């Protein structure tokens, strides 16, 4: 029997990074995993929760639960932050005793981040990807600290044929995205990005890779603004690159 997963697109994913989602499906299908996309899904509510509008999160969370209610298999997202949110925060939004609680326990616990799904569920790191470039990796805060994915994304990169993974100084320091933080305090966010970009430049890499759409949006934005030749990519896009697919840069 083929494994089946539900695609959790996430707002940033579906609105800004549809290429990443397409690549996610490509990689999963290559591994023999069947993908489904419940169309009822919208936003998981994290942006509202994190900016303090926590009671407004409930409507969104209920919709999310409804969307994934009658599905089976893991719920795979290209984002550690959104995965963490539904997996951990929904339990707090709907504590024991709340009518939605059993549903949360059943559904939200199926949510996994993409690299987590590959390395911990499927237990694969090798998938025939080919990417003959110098790459450095930025650890996204929520994947790293809330899901504990420290080595997994790098193991996947190291298994890519031709790819040279070069270290990034202060790899685990926040890039300055932080959701609502980046628009409330753009000056601080920019200063944090500048520090990140300096390290990226110093790494000597041609590509900066991360597994979080938020970081990707932030880092790619600043690279674009300063006219840097370094190309930002989601980790999934690298895993989707094969010998015969000559990928255009994103």
């Amino acid at each position, binding site marked *: 029997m083929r494994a089946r997963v539900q*695609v959790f*697109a996430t707002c940033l*994913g*579906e*609105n*800004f*990074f*549809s290429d990443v*989602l*397409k690549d996610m499906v490509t990689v999963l299908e290559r591994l023999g995993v069947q993908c489904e*996309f419940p*169309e009822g*899904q*919208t*936003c998981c*509510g994290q942006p*509202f*929760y*994190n*900016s*303090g*509008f*926590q009671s*407004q*999160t409930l*409507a*969104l969370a*209920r*919709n999310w639960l409804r969307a994934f209610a009658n599905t089976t298999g893991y719920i795979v997202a290209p984002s550690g932050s959104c995965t963490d949110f539904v997996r951990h925060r929904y339990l707090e939004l709907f504590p024991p005793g709340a009518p939605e609680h059993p549903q949360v326990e059943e559904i939200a616990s199926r949510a996994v981040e993409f690299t987590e799904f590959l390395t911990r569920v499927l237990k694969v790191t090798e998938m025939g990807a080919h990417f003959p470039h110098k790459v450095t990796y930025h650890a996204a*805060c*929520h994947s790293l*600290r*809330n899901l504990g994915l420290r080595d997994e994304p790098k193991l996947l990169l190291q298994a890519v044929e031709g790819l040279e993974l070069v270290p990034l100084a202060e790899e685990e*320091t*926040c890039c*300055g995205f*932080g*959701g*609502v*933080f*980046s*628009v*409330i*305090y*753009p*000056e*601080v*966010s*920019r*200063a*944090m*990005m500048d*520090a990140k970009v300096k390290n990226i430049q110093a790494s000597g890499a041609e590509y900066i890779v991360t597994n979080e759409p938020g970081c990707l*949006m*932030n880092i*790619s*934005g*600043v690279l*674009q*603004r300063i006219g840097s030749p370094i190309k930002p990519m989601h980790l999934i896009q690298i895993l989707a690159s094969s010998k015969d697919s000559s990928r255009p840069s994103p």
Partner: protein
Amino acid sequence: MSAIPTHIDFRRNVQSVEPQVPASVRKATTRFLDTRAAVVDVIGQESWQALRQAGHDVRLHTINHLDYYLARLEEEVTRAGGHVHWARDAQEANRIVLEIAQEHRVKRVVKAKSMVTEEIGLNRTLVDAGVQTLETDLGEYIVQLAGTGPSHIMVPAIHLTKEGIADLFREKLGLDALPEAARLAALARAQLRQEFLAADMGITGANFLVAETGTLVLVTNEGNGRMCTTLPPLHVAVAGIDKVVPDLESLNVLLKLLPRSATGQKMSAYTAFITGPRRTEEENGPKEFHLVLLDNGRTIILQDEITRETLLCIRCGACLNVCPVYNHVGGHAYGFAYSGPIGAILLPQLVGTKVAADLPFASSLCGACADICPVKIPIVEILLRLRRRVVEGDTVEPAVSPATLRLGVQMVARAMSIPWLYDLAGQLLRIAQAPFRRGAWLPSLPPPLNRWTMARPLPALRADWRAAWRRRTPEGRTRQRRIRIALVAALASAAAYVGWRLIQRQDRGE
């Protein structure tokens, strides 16, 4: 010495940070983090994590039984011959200290480093009453000369360069000093030596107060704390009620955590245990010992189950050192006494969300602070709780955000929870972005989105995933065609309606 502010405007404060500050701060914080990592390595990750858990547990236990341990502490301090005073707020604490000073005709006070006296603005009270008050911790001495407050809870002058300090000495003391750390310290020491001998009263804070023995514990590196508590005939310690620990055994855990987390030392140069005043004339130490126990909002902090853990803090400063926000803005941007992640969670609770509403948002929620905190304070959880307090209000304080904003956000949230509306909004925004679009980017957008684009461009909205997904199957393709037609029909009727209204208006000759 910073005044208790009426409103903290974090963004404005950030904009006025002097350009050399981040580099000075980073230089010091990097050094502390490196030495910390080295001593933690010596202990080993596993034992260190166990120690943190033990630290968390003992602090939480104490905070949950504060009434008991404080009563015990009072009993033991009194038994040792000390005097205990209870202060509800800053004003009361200042009054108590001033009264003690006046009773003893105190003219000169020497102070050891204390964040809590910064919190209550004690120096100003004393100086205004004509009592000369001198900070003797080198860093505090420097910021006192500069006329600012500390910018780090452990390293008050972290924002200054050696050159800046040399300039300050020249300007304020008329001393010509080379910008070298050792020389500057020697100069300050020479100045301070006479002051210790002449002082009538020493004021300190407390790192810990041991309930079981009535002992005040001071952890310092310069020895000035010891001078303040032995040379003057009178010692007054001011401490928050959260500083109490049950016994020497729990103190032992915390003394392992504190210096390692703060400065990367196994032990600080001086760890003083002070139990009451001197007992005989032959002994060293003050004739009188007073302990002022300060509430100043701490019992209110206890009310909320999550934010309560703010009180576990042992003021090591590690969360500041590791915080990317703090490292880029320095401590003064936080507007008052405490800064960095601990400031961002403590200040809104101490001075109220009306004053410090900005601070819980001054974090990217990266979580590095909670990871490093030696007593495992869930700083991110507390930040989120306080954000909710600011925006929606809770049982502790009402909301401070405008009601219109709340209504607007509610409407957006509701709309986004309706799948077809969410999908439609994406398609409409994709059309609406056209005038701002330059290739794959939106380089500048109107307010409020300019807050994003002033720092970096926004990728152009694609919103094409669902369509792409639907195109994978024949049924999906049919569905997608229908949705497309509906969208075009909706847009066409909207355009027709607008056109019709315009024609009507013209006909009426408006």
